[in-house]
């Protein structure tokens, strides 16, 4: 019963912190700010899932947490690459406006 209260307290504190992260993600002036705070939210949600797994005594929730970590990492990398591509395409179009739709994509190197 004592452990139950400890887990509930940790979950409540993490939930409050998650809203602070969300405020940063909404406020962030640049796209990199938003991605950084989304990455931070992902880390906190991982801890929340792990606490829930111990609280409900369900071992498989840890697997969900592991998959969440991988997808969070993948989403940050893919969104960064996509935004670099969009920016380069926009710059290419503004530099030579009479060129067609082709070209201007990033080469995909990290």
């Amino acid at each position, binding site marked *: 019963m004592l452990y139950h209260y400890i887990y509930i307290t940790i979950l409540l504190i993490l939930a409050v912190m998650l809203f602070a992260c969300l405020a940063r993600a909404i406020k962030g002036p640049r796209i990199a700010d938003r991605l950084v705070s989304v*990455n931070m939210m992902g880390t906190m949600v*991982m801890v929340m899932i792990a606490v829930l797994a111990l609280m409900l005594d369900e071992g498989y929730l840890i697997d969900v947490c592991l998959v969440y970590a991988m997808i969070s990492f993948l989403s940050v990398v893919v969104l*960064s690459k996509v935004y670099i591509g969009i920016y380069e395409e926009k710059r290419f179009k503004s530099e030579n406006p009479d060129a067609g739709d082709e070209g201007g994509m990033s080469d995909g190197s990290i």
Partner: protein
Amino acid sequence: MGVFDWVRLIAGCAFLICGLVIFFTEIFGVFHFRYVLNRMHATAMGDTLGIASCMIGLIIFSGFNFTSLKLLLIVIFLWFASPVSSHVLARLEVATNENLTSHCKVYTDLETLEAELEEEKKEEENEMGGEEL
């Protein structure tokens, strides 16, 4: 509860509180700094040390079984993933920010940076020598 249970409870709670304090520091840093490349510095701490501390606390609560092994696996995965995602985010910022030089110094080649560092070192040595004399 026996003595071992109390020790386990106190050690686990200490690690968990440590992790929560590190998460709070992370949020404070994110709101305190003014630029993304500074903010990234604060978030990298929570991604590695904060989650590691929380997971160690949960491992102590859970005991020695397969669940704690998987919790450890998450921490080790994040130790590899967090630097890579920080690197990609910094690259995004440098590639898309047009007035980057108003926020930080940019060195286009390594030689100028090394020359500047050498000059700073010499100035510091001169100042130290002046104080001793």
